[in-house]
């Protein structure tokens, strides 16, 4: 039997699915195939001036431009030993938290939720879930507003540069945002209730979860350690030794860890750093386990819980943003001019994008031009894991009607929130 979904809608970028299964459930062929062309972002950066890098890499992805910009800036800062100010660090953290919130809310509400109610068009979803959609849009709007105030614009922020920012936000505007956060927190709680009530499909497969780690808090901006399963590596060891890019299936380089599939993003971060969630988001997570009568171990065996983990993270990062705003407002926020001296060197960075750990690596010459670079995106790292999960799902749905089979496959793929623009770049 052959199953094909030539174009899977409601994911970021274009992709399709093909499989060949025997009647007994033996999978002869299975592929989650990306459909976008290769833009060769790394190739076009060779020879370009350092300050063009954030502008160019932002265009890898319209839904998560912030981690690409910050990944590039911090990798180049690591290379050139540039120390950035406290105000820059705090504003970058705020900007990245905002991107995680607006990316997650889009996926949670507009891309994945309709799957649980067999809704085929988001306009219909807006009609059926009036209260919830207003709440989701309000949270999204607030996060987008943060991105506009700090970054100048949400899609392709303008202000972040190597060394800091071209412009610092007005305090009045930050205060206005801070005042709106309690309402957004109420909205996030409403969304958590919505996603708590959903019937998640039964599914079981153990996998490895990777994210940055520091053992002190719920890290997402610039860390030195990557945790995968129970192992910990320095980020440079993980990037250069432990994982391997498979060059055999262009235009995407699929990544494996010691030959194995692994998962990243919200569910992986909750797995590795869940004890450091804010108090109320941790409580919501524990309530979920209690109400479902499942253990933590069981929670992480079901990939569909990535969705609930995203809902938890929306609340978590709103509360983190609230604290960051308070800290930022205590600072004078002065314009600054970063001083950068160029020499031949290289640098790597690791941070958490909405979909998981993102690596940017650059080599630069004494004139500040790029000699070499490499970008490893979260989706390229979890493509293999999607296929491993589909291999478990497929034999179980052979008896269903074709339409139902397609629905199940689509919904599993969407739970990952894959970003094909990032994976292909």
């Amino acid at each position, binding site marked *: 039997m052959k199953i094909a979904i030539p174009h899977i809608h409601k994911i970021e970028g274009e992709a399709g699915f093909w499989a060949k299964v025997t009647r007994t459930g033996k999978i002869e062929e299975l592929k989650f195939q990306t*459909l976008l062309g*290769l833009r060769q972002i*790394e190739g076009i950066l060779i020879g370009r001036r350092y300050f063009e890098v954030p502008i160019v890499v932002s265009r890898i992805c319209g839904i998560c431009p912030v981690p690409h910009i910050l990944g590039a800036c911090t990798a180049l800062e690591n290379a050139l030993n540039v120390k950035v100010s406290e105000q820059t660090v705090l504003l970058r953290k705020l900007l990245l938290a905002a991107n995680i919130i607006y990316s997650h809310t889009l996926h949670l509400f507009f891309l994945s939720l309709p799957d649980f109610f067999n809704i085929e068009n988001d*306009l219909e979803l807006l009609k059926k879930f009036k209260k919830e959609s207003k709440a989701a849009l309000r949270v999204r709007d607030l996060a987008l507003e943060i991105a506009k105030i700090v970054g100048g614009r949400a899609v392709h922020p303008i202000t972040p540069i190597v060394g800091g920012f071209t412009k610092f936000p007005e305090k009045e505007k930050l205060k206005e945002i801070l005042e709106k956060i309690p309402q957004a927190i109420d909205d996030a709680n409403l969304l958590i209730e919505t996603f708590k009530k959903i019937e998640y499909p039964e599914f079981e497969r153990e996998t490895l979860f990777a994210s940055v780690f520091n053992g002190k808090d719920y890290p997402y901006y610039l860390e030195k350690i990557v945790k995968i399963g129970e192992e910990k590596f320095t980020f440079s060891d993980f990037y250069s030794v432990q994982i391997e890019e498979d*060059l055999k299936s262009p235009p995407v380089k699929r990544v494996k860890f010691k030959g194995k599939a692994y998962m990243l993003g919200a569910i992986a971060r909750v797995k590795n750093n869940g004890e450091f969630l804010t108090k109320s988001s941790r409580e919501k997570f524990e309530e979920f386990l209690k109400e479902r009568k499942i253990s933590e171990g069981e929670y992480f065996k079901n990939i569909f819980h990535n969705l609930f983990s995203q809902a938890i993270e929306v609340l978590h990062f709103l509360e983190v943003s609230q604290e960051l705003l308070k800290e930022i407002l205590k600072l004078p926020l002065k314009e600054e001019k970063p001083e950068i001296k160029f020499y031949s060197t290289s640098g790597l960075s690791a941070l958490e994008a909405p979909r998981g750990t993102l690596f940017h690596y650059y080599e630069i010459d004494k004139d500040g031009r790029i000699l070499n*670079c490499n970008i490893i995106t979260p989706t390229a790292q979890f493509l293999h894991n999607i296929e491993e999960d589909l291999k478990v799902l497929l034999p179980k749905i052979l008896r269903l009607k074709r339409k139902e089979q397609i629905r199940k496959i689509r919904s599993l793929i969407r739970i990952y929130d894959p970003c094909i623009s990032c994976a292909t770049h």
Partner: protein
Amino acid sequence: MKKPKVAFFSLTSCEGCQFALLDLGEKFFDFLREVDLIDFSLIEEMPFPKGKVEIDVSFVEGLSIKKEEIDLLKKIREESKILVAVGNCAALGGIPEMKNYQGKERTIRYIYKKLNVENPEIKEIDNFVKVDFYIPGCPINGEEFLKYAKELIQGKIPEILQKPICSECPHQGKETCFLRKKEPCLGPITLAGCGAICPKNGQLCYGCRGILKNINPKGFLETLKKFKKPEEIEDNLEIFGIKDDLEKFLKS
């Protein structure tokens, strides 16, 4: 009255222009309620019909890098009364067009040393099909999109006022103007409509909205050369794919 049939398509791109629309929230959904939506893969499941559809307005984002994308683009053209190029990639080649200037045989070697990967010259979509209207910007401005889209769904081709970025720029005529500080800002030759969003946020204009139609940029480029090396000016023109358009301009 019958609702106009509208479709959104995304070719190879970052999809940022579609997100600029979704980020409008309720305002954009209100617009969608006024139309009969044939295809918009980010928000609905319906596959693009194989047979005849007769779309009133198709919006196309991105570049046709793969052969399948060129085929899709041609089908979209056949089915659509009005075809609109949305954003800098579709209209002007965008960031990916830098590949042409860098040399495509060279750029691919940094990514796949041995394998054969589709690696065409980057060409704007109007090299493959007739385009009726261009919405500029990287990304597009959502509000501006709505303004034009409302005319387009009535079958009208909007007119874009040919004014430079400087006319919207808070630094115009002030000490803070990048050009006064001898920074090669492309504001004077670039089409306005974004609210000078980059200069307003402390970045030079790199011309992502394309060159004004009613000016001769030659004089401006000569002025830039007085304080910047030609290579540096060229590098800036390459970022958003306007160097080739400028060259065409200067030849004509």
